[in-house]
């Protein structure tokens, strides 16, 4: 992607974000027919499940059994369910790690890929492979790499003199290990977003800073970082949403184990719905889970609005 394309692109997505969050009156009825088919479809696959989920969550309902109206019983049951509460806490822990690590590494990677060097396009292609690769496939490879006796990771650790780890086989290290995979996978997305931000930076502040003899760190700290901050916030919002919803990697590598040590809300939900077929209770979990995601995204969106640079 040329610098110019990146510039156009990020400005555009910026404008789009602002208008989506700010809102503009819908006009131009003649175009309604263009949008209608997609609108009907999205309504069908989004609105129907929501209404139905709300309906189910108010019922005592196991698949293949009769259902009965239960009012708010399922929600009350959630309040007293320790396994659910641990899953919620674990999700926040997992998400915090899985947001911060890719943000830091992605910013560093963006600073590197922002410079010109030979084979940059190809190497950038290699760098983004993890996020395009099939999660189940890479999850399986990581599972093999995590093997305590025969895995290549412990071989690498011990060969440089570090103690071997139990990785995903120990309740204490399972979440950081899974976050490591998630970081490996999603650092490229943060890199791309920040790279778009870097491409849109003006050059004048750097020129005058250079004249004033500012150090590289001072320039990053006082010029680059503040200007890129809005893009970092976009990356943080996207990462938060994805980290909270993370499923494939956890399901494939640890199945929520050992025990329930890596059972996040999504895994808990899967278990309730498709192992216990307790769809009434699972629907209440969905409702709470969705409220959590919306709250987190809105909080970050609010923070982002406040860091908006005057553009």
């Amino acid at each position: 992607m040329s610098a110019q394309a990146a510039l156009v692109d990020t400005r555009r997505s910026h404008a789009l974000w602002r208008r989506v969050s700010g809102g503009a009156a819908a006009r131009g009825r003649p175009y309604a027919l263009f949008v209608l088919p997609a609108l009907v479809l999205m309504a069908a696959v989004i609105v129907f499940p929501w209404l139905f989920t709300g309906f189910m969550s108010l019922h005592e309902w196991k698949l293949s059994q009769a259902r009965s109206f239960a009012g708010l019983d399922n929600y009350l049951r959630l309040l007293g369910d320790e396994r659910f509460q641990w899953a919620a806490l674990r999700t926040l822990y997992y998400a915090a790690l899985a947001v911060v690590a890719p943000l830091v590494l992605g910013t560093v990677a963006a600073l590197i890929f922002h410079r010109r060097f030979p084979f940059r396009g190809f190497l950038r292609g290699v760098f983004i492979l993890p996020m395009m690769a099939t999660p189940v496939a890479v999850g399986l490879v990581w599972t093999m790499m995590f093997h305590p006796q025969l895995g290549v990771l412990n071989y690498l650790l011990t060969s440089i003199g570090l103690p071997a780890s139990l990785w995903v086989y120990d309740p204490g290290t399972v979440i950081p290990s899974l976050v490591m995979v998630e970081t490996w996978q999603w650092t490229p997305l943060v890199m791309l977003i920040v790279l778009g931000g870097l491409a849109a930076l003006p050059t004048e502040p750097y020129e005058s800073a250079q004249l004033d003899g500012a150090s590289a760190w001072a320039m990053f700290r006082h010029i680059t970082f503040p200007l890129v901050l809005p893009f970092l916030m976009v990356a943080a919002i996207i990462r938060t949403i994805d980290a909270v919803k993370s499923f494939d990697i956890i399901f494939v590598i640890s199945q929520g184990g050992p025990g329930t040590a890596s059972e996040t809300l999504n895994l808990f939900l899967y278990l309730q719905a498709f192992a216990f077929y307790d769809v009434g209770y699972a629907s209440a979990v969905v409702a709470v889970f969705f409220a959590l995601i919306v709250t987190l995204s809105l909080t970050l969106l609010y923070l982002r609005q406040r860091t908006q640079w005057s553009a």
Partner: protein
Amino acid sequence: MVGVRARRRLRRLAGRAGFAFAVLVMISPALMVFLWMISLSLKTEIENIAYPPVFVPETPTLDNFRHVFEASPFGRYIVNSLIVTGSATLFALAIGVPAGYGIAKAKAYRLAVLVLIARITPNLSYLIPLFILFQFLGLTGTLWPLVMTHLVITVPIVVWVMIGFFETLHPDLEEAALIDGATLWQAFRYIALPLARPGIVVAAILAFIFSWNNFIFGVVLAGRETRTLPVAVYNVLTFEQISWGPLAAAALVVTLPVLILTIFVQREILTGLTAGGIKGG
């Protein structure tokens, strides 16, 4: 004087070496995992569980790949994946490209919020109601439920990328056509659509990849006969015995098309992804 110049050159060289090293450190985790995957898939079982690990296979073999295709109807799963992802992508283009055009032209960004909501909602939360619905309709055991649920991934990607793309298209030509008496549909079909071809390619690639990679819909909705590739690979995993070779081979078969596609069209992918930072999931 000479000494100063030499020192300066040395420092520049050191700086360059340091930068090259930084690049290497950045890309090596990505590179290593995929090379290790290839290595595992080409080695015999003895080499795969050897300790210390064998990095480069002594006698590379394709037995693991043969085993995957013999032990399970892997060919059929490939066809399943192609049908599900192909139909979901084509259908998403058919309704998503006009929708993106309509939203961009009418500046109806409130409708774009619907796309964002689809992006935020966990896939599992669609699955419970849809699972019950598909059972009720008697569609379980066919590929239909998979195609329909994959639209949840492909349609938002296509709409979102196309909104961004149509916004950057200059409206002059269409306006001229409208003044000459063309209908809105004709202006779209004969003027905007051909110009938007690059955007459509980006949208199609991204929709295809994220639908291809999807696991969660398949794991819930697919039966033995209707598995898509990610689900089939997951089922190769056996906990009783370690059979790493076939597992890595199966994983490679699933993800190789995506990896190759990514390398070749990385520039297009980057343009599409930065336009709003979208992905399925």
